[in-house]
């Protein structure tokens, strides 16, 4: 009886020590999921390197890692939202708004510390995330509609504010522009920092009650509510965090590209969702991890880089990319479903 009231545990969520065997299986399934993406990534890199040795040299690794950082960050925030059975389509617009407004500070206030600019970006993103969160959580309206609306609204605000202006590299201090460039033992510092942030996010979602609650909400919101989980508050926080992360990603975008106008980040939302889905996060919520999503973003960047490095005709690039994306989504979702039903079979047999 009591078991029925508890939120259904999906893969990716560690169970308390009571249900030992199911917990062990869940752990293994969880690891298989992420390692599956890792395996695909390794195979892909191996094949490409065989065809083009220079694919795996230091400078290209740096390129791919840096190109991934913005998307990995966005994927982190998006995963939290998607796990709770929502979606945040406004990330591209938030990134764009934050990218301009924060980097513009360098020109307006020469000598401003880089940290302050990052905080400004975070603040702008947070404000947008709060708006999303309030509307979804308190208004109890579908997040797809709300964030589609804020996608339009925030981009419109961005265009109104920016007009025909742009921030150019000349107004940005070298310390800022060097952020994506500094490396330690050949790996970009920024990639290490982002990896650390992702690890923190992963740990939080696994261990902290508020993180695990998101999985519960995504699995079965009604049961979650009945079990006493503050669904509104958790969903609100997820959107706020997603917005804040998108804001920081905007600042990093500025550091990477150096020229920022009102089109920054256009179209990113679909790419981020692709990365999240490829990374094994179920679009209906309840399972998946930020590590998987980050690996998904890395895999997509790697595919892009491979296509350009192999020098296949540029007119074929997009079709091949689309095909591989479909393949990745199909493979991942099929594996997930097989594993989930196997898990369920196993549990039924053991009960």
């Amino acid at each position, binding site marked *: 009886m009591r078991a029925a009231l508890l939120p259904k545990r999906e893969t990716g969520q560690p169970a308390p020590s009571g249900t030992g065997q199911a917990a062990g299986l869940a752990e293994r399934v969880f690891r298989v999921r992420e390692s599956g993406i890792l395996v695909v990534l390794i195979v892909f890199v191996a094949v490409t390197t065989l065809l083009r040795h220079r694919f795996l040299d230091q*400078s290209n690794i740096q*390129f791919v890692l840096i190109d991934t950082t913005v998307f990995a960050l966005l994927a982190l925030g998006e995963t939290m939202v998607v796990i709770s059975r929502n979606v945040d389509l406004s990330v591209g617009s938030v990134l764009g708004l934050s990218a301009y407004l924060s980097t513009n500070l360098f020109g307006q206030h020469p000598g401003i510390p880089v940290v302050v600019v990052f905080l400004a970006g975070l603040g702008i993103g947070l404000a947008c995330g709060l708006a999303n969160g309030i509307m979804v959580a308190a208004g109890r309206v579908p997040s797809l509609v709300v964030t589609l609306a804020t996608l339009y609204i925030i981009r419109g605000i961005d*265009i109104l504010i920016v007009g*025909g202006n742009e921030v150019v*590299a000349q107004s940005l201090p070298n310390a800022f522009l060097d952020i994506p460039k500094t490396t330690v033992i050949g790996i970009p510092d920024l990639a290490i920092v982002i990896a650390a942030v992702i690890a923190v996010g992963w740990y939080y979602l696994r261990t902290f009650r508020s993180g695990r609650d998101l999985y519960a909400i995504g699995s079965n919101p009604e049961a979650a509510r009945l079990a006493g989980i503050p669904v509104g508050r958790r969903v609100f926080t997820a959107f706020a965090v997603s917005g804040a992360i998108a804001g920081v990603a905007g600042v990093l975008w500025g550091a990477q590209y150096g*020229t920022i*106008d*009102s089109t920054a980040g256009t179209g990113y939302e679909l790419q981020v969702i692709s990365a999240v889905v490829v990374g094994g996060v179920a679009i209906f919520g309840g399972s998946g991890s930020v590590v998987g999503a980050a690996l998904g973003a890395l895999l997509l960047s790697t595919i892009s880089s491979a296509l350009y490095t192999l*020098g296949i005709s540029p007119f074929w690039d997009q079709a091949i990319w689309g095909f591989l994306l479909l393949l990745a989504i199909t493979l991942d979702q099929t594996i997930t479903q097989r594993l989930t039903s196997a898990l369920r079979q196993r549990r039924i047999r053991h009960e």
Partner: protein
Amino acid sequence: MRLRRATLLALALPAAITLAACSSSSASSTSTTTPATSSSATTSATSSSTASSSGLKTGLKVFIIPKNLGNSYFTTADSANSGGAIAALDTLGESGTETSGTAATPASQIPAIQAAIAKGANALIVSATDPTALCPTLESAMKRGITVVTYDSDAPTCRDLFVNQASTAEIGTSEVDVLASEIGDSGQIAIVSAAASATNQNAWIGYMKQELKKYPKMSLVSIVYGNDDPTTATQVTQGLLQQYPNLKGIISPTTVGIAAAAAVLDNAKYRGKIMLTGLGTPDEMKKYVADGTVKEFVLWNPANLGYLAAYAAVNYASGKITNAEGQSFTAGKLGSYTVGADDTILLGPPTVFNAANINNFNF
């Protein structure tokens, strides 16, 4: 049932109003007073003497329709305070308005053109997002006697005049010459272009290939397409670096492309080893010229382009010139210009920017 009746009513009401309006109103529209008109109405009192003394009409409604709004290149070309098209129109006593969509596609630009026609435009100055897709709309404008002048990007079969920033051939050849001088006339080079179907870029690349024949020791190994998107342009540039370890130079005939490529090359590993040139705006390139990533690049003054286009449009609309070759007119502070072949007016030779002169420009 209540549902059906009520929903029929819901549909009938707006439909009825619309149909009633359709049948009652005539096609012609009276002009509304736009803010631009009212401001130039005051200036026209003082400057109409300039215009009328040269036989030009005043009070013309001119709409400038760039590829998209929110694009700094076009903002410079069109706005009054940069000395662009609207500045010229204000001087001449016309009313100038800039309008367009935000997506740089025909679907986004066409409604703006149609709205301009509806608002009683006398002349349109358009930078075409596509050489043919705008034709049905532009032709309907020309049928109503509206002057259609294209600038920056042409729609060759459906306009009265085209104001070209520099000869297509010269833009292509100058970029190759600049790069050749920077890499010692030999080595592998590549091109980072815009969208695969971008007419301007494709035309310039055609001339680049021709000019390359003058440099037998240089070879064009690849053309990649950055789609005028910073992320794509960055990735295709990185791909080039991986694919061609001996690459000596890159030409990017698009401002988004050269900015992205410069950001990629802006480190000790590539600076000075792979030379970058192309079409860039001075403001965007200042940093890269200062630290040596880019030595020289090419462009023209967009404000002058817009200014000239405005004068051309007003002269044509006033009947002072036709689009026959040899017709000439004065374009205010820019001097006198002549219509060349293909109804095209050339602004002048492209400007080469480098460390010596870049700080004189602010666009």
